[in-house]
């Protein structure tokens, strides 16, 4: 870099900030501004008066408690299952046997599919004349179709949503964990083996603690996304299982009240921030603990 340019941009100290600038502008325009607007919409009436009316109406909504319940229930069911499966998948991919990389591509396939499309794929499995019923019927296991997706059997419908979400979004957790696994220095693993730690012991006492920072990021990202789950639920369970993100969507697009839609969005944001804080506080990585 020539001296003139260096003078304009400031010293090398400022270079990183210049490099960050495009990202900051992007985040500012596409995340912070809408976020700011949503908060204003949620608290300010069309006449410009500060009001809590929209939150009161949100809480008083017939579907609110249900939506809140299912949103949490879905996140609490899905995230632990996903993290465990993703860990198993990551360990397999990272195992280093011949062809183990092949699994990375297989596992990552659903990442390329939009969530709505994923919901529709699973819908074709679970409908009354779907693939699952056809297979069970042709094997002679059932003599008439089972209604998997049914308001009369919300448990089964919920499991169908969990299955679809699990299939669709576990890969992102796996990718983060694979990256984390690859950052673990071979020295630790070799040292562990020299000292006699193998198999489960090695995973439990060496790999997992070293993987904690990655696990933390994966948990935060997955939990936030799980709270926002919407398209898969919409496609599979329709109106049987209401969720908060869905209610925000309906209020905005069907009932055309952006204020109440924003109230839902703000509530989701507050829950997401709360969960992130929880993870940061209670899942401190070992490194920080040692350093601190």
């Amino acid at each position, binding site marked *: 870099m020539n001296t003139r340019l260096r003078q304009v941009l400031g010293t090398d100290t400022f270079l990183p900030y210049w490099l960050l600038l495009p990202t900051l502008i992007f985040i500012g325009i596409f995340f912070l501004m809408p976020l700011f607007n949503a908060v204003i919409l949620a608290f300010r009436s069309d006449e410009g008066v500060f009001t809590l009316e929209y939150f009161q109406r949100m809480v008083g909504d*017939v579907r609110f408690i249900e939506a809140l319940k299912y949103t949490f229930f879905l996140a609490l069911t899905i995230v632990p299952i996903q993290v465990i499966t993703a860990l198993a998948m990551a360990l397999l991919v990272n195992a280093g046997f011949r062809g183990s990389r092949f699994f990375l591509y297989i596992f990552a396939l659903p990442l390329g599919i939009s969530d709505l499309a994923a919901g529709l794929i699973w819908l074709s499995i679970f409908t*009354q004349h779907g693939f699952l019923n056809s297979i069970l019927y042709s094997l002679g296991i059932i003599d008439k179709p089972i209604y998997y997706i049914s308001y009369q059997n919300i448990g089964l419908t919920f499991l169908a949503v969990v299955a679809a979400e699990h299939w669709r979004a576990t890969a992102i957790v796996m990718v983060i964990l694979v990256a984390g696994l690859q950052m673990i220095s071979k020295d630790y693993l070799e040292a562990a083996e020299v000292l006699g730690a193998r198999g489960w012991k090695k995973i439990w006492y060496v790999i997992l603690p070293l993987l904690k920072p990655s696990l933390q990021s994966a948990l935060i990202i997955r939990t936030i996304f799980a709270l926002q789950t919407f398209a898969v639920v919409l496609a599979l369970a329709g109106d049987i299982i209401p969720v908060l993100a869905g209610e925000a969507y309906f209020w905005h697009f*069907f009932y055309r009240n952006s204020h109440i839609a924003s109230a839902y969005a703000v509530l989701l944001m507050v829950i997401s921030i709360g969960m992130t804080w929880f993870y940061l506080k209670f899942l401190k990585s070992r490194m920080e603990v040692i350093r601190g």
Partner: protein
Amino acid sequence: MKKLSVLAVALLVGAFAGLGQKITWMSTQFVPIAEAEFVRNEILAPFAEATGIEVEFIGAEYAEFVSRVTAEYEAGKGEIAVLCALHGDFVSVLDALADVSGVPVGGTISETLMKLGQMGGKQAYIPLMQATYLMVANKKALEYLPEGADVWALTYDDLLQWAKNIYEATGMQKLGIPAGPKSLLHRFIHGYLYPSFTGYQVLAFDSGAAVKMWEYMKELWQYVNPAAPTWDAMDTPLLSEEVWIAWDHTARVKQALIERPDDFIAIPSPAGPAGRGFITVLAGLGIPATSPDPDAAAKLIEYLTTPEVQVKILQGVGFFPVVAEAAGAVPSGALQILAKGVSAQAASPDAIVSFIPGGISDEYKKIYKDTFFKFVIKGEPVDVEFLRSQATRLRELYLEAGAPYPAPDGS
């Protein structure tokens, strides 16, 4: 060169021949370019050939339509000779309309539909075309019809018994009502159930008749396919035979009838204790009081209401005929099946026509749907207090917007 001059002369003669016989038709319908082209080329060109009257078609949005018609009326002089608009559009320009009761019609329009055009002490418009929601049944379901029930004039009790018979015979819930997030369930509740059971869509929301209606719906729901809350349209479940009987908008069942026209019939929606409630999206033809050529306008109206043109409109833009003779003139296939059902429904002697609410917040849809969700899908007992609070909110929406209650409530 010679050819060109001949052409020029021909054009000039043509233009002069049409002079004085050129009228302007303003319409809030057929506005999309493809539809406007269809009207100009397929409908108006043959009319000009037959009568020598050139019609200039102008598509307009609601706001433009109202301001232009009102301005011409206030000026006492106008250029627009004839109007085409939805019922609700005409309501906004009622004063500016001439009485069209003397205008000849090209076919037979049912009394029910004709009456809807009577407003402000005159025939404000002549019905042109309609869109509606009705029932479609697989022919396999017909053998389970309850004894004495007429499939062309079902009651809600018949429907319940019918679905129950099928359930008892096949073990399957073969009745379909679209109740998914993007479904038109709210139309079924405010335009079909409520008017059929209570006679109104708003005024009797929390009445005793409404309580009975919700009790009925809970009972009927036992025979509705439990996947219904995931369905936005009924064509796919009809084709897959997950359901044998379904209710939906004509456009949302059409595909099933196109693919298997021999397997289905389209029938009127059922009648309740108050009558046969159904929604009509009705477009009509009116003549402004300031029309420069009411005679030519009347000729156009007569032409547009002939069975042949009505069928053309159905094929071109999917709106159904209002003229009884047209239903039989539709070539066989999906459209003919639907046209027969639409026509039978519109001609029902016990008809209670409902209009779609206009000018109010879309939140009214949520009020109907939420009540359904609570009582029917979640299965909670019918709670009068809740009905009352929903009714209050619903009336508030009309009050806030200063909008009149739509038919059958308002007049």
